Each structure stands twice: as structure tokens, then as C-alpha cells.
């Protein structure tokens, strides 16, 4: 029944999740505009809210070993409804993938290479991602170690380099903003980056050993959260009141590194680290999309779908929003609302239904 013949170990899952969450480090800029200096609180609150949900994903995956999300949906909701829900998920995967690809493009045209046409970045990036996906999940899992280490190195070193420019009184006053803004902030943080880990429901079917899955997932999540917190704290401490006006706060704080007139102009460093991590994130999303679609249609392998989907994604990424402003507005409103059912409602519901119906039914030849 498996599309993917490869297996990943628990530790690789850990690093995949860590890199995935860290890849959203630049995406917390969506919340900074809303929650200003309370962003770190919002991240912690989002974590607390989503941890039980994410644990339900892992328990669900453990209950249905070696099955991915589409198969689980089919079993739990019946063939018709299950397929409808899977299509909803696939829509979510494809859309979010296009947002992330677009993010990379926006990063480059705003900060690093301004004169190059936008579509170039999309094509090159998507081509690399599709190559990675065609190689399979094992390859992705193996390189995730390296990516996570690179990313951590980048943010920790920039944090240390900026320590003398930090002013921790920027975090006061502590509870200033109206609750609706905090709520929106928490909603955004729970949906992106934490909620997007729902994609791992497609990948956990490939675990070769589900024993310690809960522990590993949790650990991976923690590493990711720590990275996000370091970024949020660094930005608030360094920039203080003005952090809401920049398109990307991380870039701006890194520009301020000025030590001994030698260590200046480091913004390329964060550009590289961020590109690598978004690459990991996009590869995972793309992999999940192709496997989900192949599973839905009952295909034997997902390989032929990789390139057409890549083509679709490039064009969608290029046209779905008009500008970064559009991207930000829509993500802060509609984007997180339509993903709420997928992240918060369906998996725990599946778990509940599975428990009630006693799924999966033990088949002959397989133990309980």
C-alpha cells in the first residue's frame, strides 16, 4: 500500500520537524506587525495551545502504522468523505507550498537581488525542490541534520553578535496590547509554523520504528520553538519600538551588526540560512502534496506527478498574490482561518472516531 518505499528513523524525524519549524522564522514577521514587543509571549502561548494537537497527530500516526494521511482518512471517514477531506488537505498543501515559494522570491527581490525578474527565482527554486522530492524522503531526512545545524548556527551567532546592541527594557510594558490582537497573533503562530506540522501526518507513515515517536516529535518541536524564540527576542531587543515598520525585522537587525568595522553587512548570512531552511520546508510540502495526490488516485508511484505539479506551483506562486502587502494581509486573515479545521479539528476528530470504532481493525496475519 505504500507509495514511498523508504524509511526514516526517529532521529531524522526530529530534525525534519526542527528544520521545518525553524524555516518559518522569517514568517513570524506576520505577527510582529500585530503583536510588536509581545511576540515572544505569543509564540509561547501558541506552543502551549498546539502541543496537545500535535501530540494527537503522533498518536494517530502510531495507531495507524505505515499508513499516511490519505489512507487514514479513507479508513476513518469512509471512502467518499475521506476522499473529500483529503482533497481539502491537498488544497491546503498546494496553497501553502506556493506561499512559501513566493516567500523565497520576495526575500530575494526585496533585499538581496533586486533587479532579477521574480519568476526566475521561482523557477530555479522549484526546480531544485522537485529534484529533491524526486529523490525521495530518505534523502531529505538525511540532509535535514545539516540544514538544522546551519540554521541554528546562523541565528545563534547573530544573536551573540548583537548582544551589545540589545536593550531589554524594550520588552516592557508587558501586557499592553488589546486582547484581540494577541489572539490574532496566537492564531497566526499556531497556524504557521506550528499547525503546518500536520503535513507530517503524511510522513510519519514512513517511520521505521514508532516507539519513541512522541518523544522525538516533541523534541524536534522544542528545537524549532527555541529558534523562533531566539529570533523574536533578538529582534525586539535590538530594534525596540521601530520593529513594526520594517518589511523584515530579521534582516534589519542583522544589518546593524557592526563590530570592529570588520563584521558588517552580514545580511547575506541570514539570507543563506533562511533560503536553506525554506528549501527544507518546501521540499517537505511538495513531497507531501505529490504523495497525497498519488495516494488519492491510487497510483503506484508519485514520480510522474512531480514535474507537472512543479509547473503548476510555479505559476500559482507567481500569480496568487499581487505583492508582499497582499500576501501579508490575506495570510493574516483568510489564510489562517481556512486552515483551522485541518489543523485543529480533523486529526483529533479522526483519533476520536478511530478509538470509538476500534480502528484499525486487525487483519489476519498482522498482530495487534
Amino acid at each position, binding site marked *: 500500500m505504500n507509495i514511498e518505499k523508504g524509511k526514516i528513523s526517529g532521529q531524522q524525524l526530529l530534525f525534519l520537524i526542527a528544520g521545518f519549524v525553524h524555516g518559518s522564522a522569517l514568517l513570524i514577521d506576520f505577527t510582529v506587525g500585530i503583536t510588536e514587543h509581545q511576540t515572544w509571549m505569543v509564540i509561547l502561548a501558541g506552543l502551549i495551545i498546539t502541543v496537545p494537537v500535535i501530540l494527537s497527530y503522533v498518536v494517530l500516526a502510531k495507531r495507524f502504522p505505515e499508513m499516511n494521511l490519505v489512507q487514514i482518512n479513507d479508513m476513518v471517514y469512509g471512502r467518499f468523505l475521506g476522499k473529500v477531506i483529503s482533497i481539502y488537505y491537498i*488544497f491546503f498543501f498546494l*496553497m501553502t507550498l506556493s506561499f512559501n515559494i513566493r516567500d523565497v522570491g520576495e526575500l530575494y527581490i526585496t533585499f538581496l537581488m533586486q533587479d532579477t525578474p521574480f*519568476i526566475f527565482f521561482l523557477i530555479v527554486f522549484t526546480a531544485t525542490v522537485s529534484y529533491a522530492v524526486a529523490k525521495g524522503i530518505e534523502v531529505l531526512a538525511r540532509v535535514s541534520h545539516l540544514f538544522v545545524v546551519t540554521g541554528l548556527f546562523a541565528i545563534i551567532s547573530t544573536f551573540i553578535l548583537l548582544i551589545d546592541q540589545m536593550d531589554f527594557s524594550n520588552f516592557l510594558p508587558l501586557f499592553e496590547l488589546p486582547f*484581540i490582537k494577541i489572539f*490574532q497573533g496566537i492564531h497566526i503562530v499556531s497556524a504557521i509554523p506550528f499547525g503546518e506540522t500536520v503535513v507530517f501526518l503524511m510522513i510519519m507513515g514512513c517511520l521505521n520504528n514508532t516507539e519513541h515517536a512522541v518523544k522525538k516529535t516533541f523534541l524536534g518541536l522544542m528545537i524549532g520553538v527555541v529558534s523562533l524564540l531566539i529570533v523574536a527576542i533578538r529582534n525586539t531587543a535590538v530594534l525596540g519600538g521601530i520593529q513594526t515598520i520594517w518589511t523584515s525585522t530579521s534582516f534589519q537587525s542583522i544589518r546593524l551588526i557592526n563590530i570592529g568595522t570588520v563584521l558588517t553587512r552580514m545580511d547575506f548570512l541570514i539570507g543563506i540560512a533562511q533560503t536553506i531552511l525554506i528549501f527544507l520546508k518546501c521540499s517537505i510540502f511538495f513531497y507531501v502534496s505529490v504523495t497525497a*495526490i*498519488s495516494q488519492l*488516485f*491510487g*497510483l*503506484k*508511484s508519485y*514520480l*510522474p*506527478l512531480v*514535474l*507537472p*505539479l*512543479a*509547473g*503548476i506551483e*510555479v*505559476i*500559482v506562486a*507567481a*500569480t*496568487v*498574490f499581487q505583492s508582499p502587502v497582499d500576501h501579508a494581509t*490575506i495570510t*493574516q*486573515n*483568510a*489564510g489562517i*482561518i*481556512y486552515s483551522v479545521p485541518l489543523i485543529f479539528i480533523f486529526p483529533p476528530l479522526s483519533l476520536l472516531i478511530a478509538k470509538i470504532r476500534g480502528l484499525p481493525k486487525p487483519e489476519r496475519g498482522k498482530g495487534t
Partner: protein
Amino acid sequence: MILLLLIYAYILIANVPGLIKRKEWKELIVFSIFYVIAFGLGIMYVLGIPVPSPMKGLQHLIVDILGIEYPQG
């Protein structure tokens, strides 16, 4: 434009012969569906025809019709 045609020709060449040889008809059908969609979108983009954006539609649905929205500003 030429780049587009080249890329799509490559996609076709890389995938179709393998599929036909292995007689994987279902895969071929699904592949063709997506290939046509991708090609169509690509042509629209290159020719400058505005491609409808799914998120705009979703935004309309959620904000205008269902009225769920966070206060701006």
C-alpha cells in the same frame, strides 16, 4: 516563451516514454491531466492573461460572505 516550451517538452520526454513502456495507464492519465493544467497555466502566464488566484476567491468567501475577519489596524 521559448523557455516555457522547452521546459514542458523536457517534462513530456522525461516522463511519458517510461510510463508507456511500463504500461502504467492510470499514471499516464493522471499525469496528463496535471500536465495539461500546468501547460495551460504556463501559457496563460506567458501571454499575460490574468490567472485567477484561488486565495482571492477564498478571501472573498471567508471575509465577505461568512463575515469572519480580524479587525484591521
